[in-house]
């Protein structure tokens, strides 16, 4: 079955970079955990092998469990030894096969390399990620605001859980 073989190919391609691989056969889905510095190489491997296409980049916020009211989004609070993180999912698709590259970056080092040099269409997704989750993408061609209004304050990332619209709990000001 082609989707099956596609997944196997992806598995082999990404073996050198992966920290962990989770395969869900019935959904034709493969989750690959990567460290952020391996991202570019992994995407390059996929790109060189012409494996699928980048379907989306999704961010998921994993704030550290918060105790008390003094919490802020700058990542200085570490409860129970756990850091606030943003998980970034690079979803590649080929036919029915879905490949998810998962990376976790802490708020303190919310940085990722760009993949725009390989996949030009990633620019809009990367800009969205930067605006919504405050993940700095190094080397992305355009860094202008894409979606948020011009007067939106710097350092407020709306899709982080700590940002509650209507108050300024996560804003660096106030």
């Amino acid at each position, binding site marked *: 079955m082609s*989707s099956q073989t596609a997944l196997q190919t992806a598995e082999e391609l990404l073996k050198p970079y992966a920290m962990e691989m989770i395969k869900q056969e019935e959904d*034709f*889905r493969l989750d690959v955990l990567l460290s952020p510095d391996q991202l570019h190489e992994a995407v390059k491997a996929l790109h060189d092998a012409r494996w699928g*296409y*980048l*379907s*989306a980049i*999704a*961010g*998921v*916020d994993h704030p550290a469990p918060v105790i008390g009211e003094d919490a802020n989004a700058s990542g200085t609070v570490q409860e129970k030894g756990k850091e606030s993180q943003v998980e970034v*999912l690079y*979803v590649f*698709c080929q*036919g*029915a096969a*879905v490949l*998810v590259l998962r990376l976790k970056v802490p708020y303190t080092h919310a940085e990722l390399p760009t993949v725009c040099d390989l*996949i*030009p*269409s*990633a*620019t*809009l*997704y990367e800009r*969205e990620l930067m605006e*919504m989750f405050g993940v700095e993408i190094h080397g992305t061609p*355009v860094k*202008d*605001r*894409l*979606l*948020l*209004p011009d*007067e*939106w*304050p710097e350092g407020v990332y*709306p*899709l982080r*859980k700590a*940002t509650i*619209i*209507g*108050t*300024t709990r996560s*804003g660096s*000001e106030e």
Partner: protein
Amino acid sequence: METRKSSEKFVVPIGPQHPALKEPGHFEFTVDGEIVTGASVRLGYVHRGIEKGAEDRTWTQNIYLLERICGICSHVHATAYVLGVEKLAGVSAPPRAQAIRTVTAELERIHSHLLWLGVAAHEGGFDTLFMYSWRDRETVMDLLELISGNRVHYSTNVLGGVKYDLDTEKMDAIRRGLDFLEERTHHYMKVVTTDETFLARTRGVGLMTREQAEALGAVGPTARASSVRRDIRIDAPYAAYPDFPVKLITDDGGDLLARFVVRLKELFESYRVIRAILDQMPEGELTTRVPRRIPAGEVISRVEAPRGELFYYIKSNGGEKPERIKVRTPSLCNWGTVVSVAVGHKLADMPMLLAGIDPCFSCNDRMVRINRGQGAQFWSWENLRQYGIEYYR
């Protein structure tokens, strides 16, 4: 006057308010005479914060919220969502429900493509085609109203099934409507492929090779017009598509004409599939039970919207509300193609190029609820209300 002299570049802004755009977006085309030498895009004028809002609503409430992402392809958003949630919950809707979902989705595709045909023709200054295609679109709108009682937000989907049944009377009405539309579509096909002035505006315009389309991440009819073989209904069939397969429509033209042809051919395919489903409509229940709390987990749900692949990522914590919903709409993918392909074309081609991908601004702009305030402040509803009271005192 100074501004024009001082800068070498002559920038023609299109949007946020512009007759070519039915929704707000902002494009800047740098032109040299009539030739476009650069293009950039700024979105976000209809941001409503739906992704953030979805985290604050129950699983059921979210159907209605997500349906409102887009007024044209509302059903397909709800379908992507309910399919994902049903998968998380480990249930699947009964076959009849899946069939009705698919019928509604295809009717929606017909309505969307006819709407696009009209808009694209209007951008090219062919208002007669615009008027006729929109008149005929009323037929399919009436059919959707017949099924669901609504012309725009059909709200057909519920978690675990559908709300509305199709009886023989409605099915006959749909068949009659389709017969009329099919005849009209043949006519449009003839107009689009033979009218000389229209061909002059579409043939060879916005040429995008297969390699470009793939590199720029095009999806849907835009990609298929550049012979990219990609259609979620075929690649990863969902709802009733495994039982009623559709045929992949591609064209190797890669220009605007090919985009017209692909969409019109897809209409014929939609007519065929709807008829096939109506003829062999499965019997049975309309809904299954879905628990109020969805088990923890995450799912990626992909469906083929009229404009291309619609991507949903749904994550549950096992609660009554989703942890995260990520929506990637097809229009977002296709912007890249416009901005790159625009360079070297004439300014007069820009509206048609923009329309050629069938953009949907509402779809793009969905992430953040904006409380516009003065300076860099957030205004809560209370503040705004207070401000309003103060202002009018």
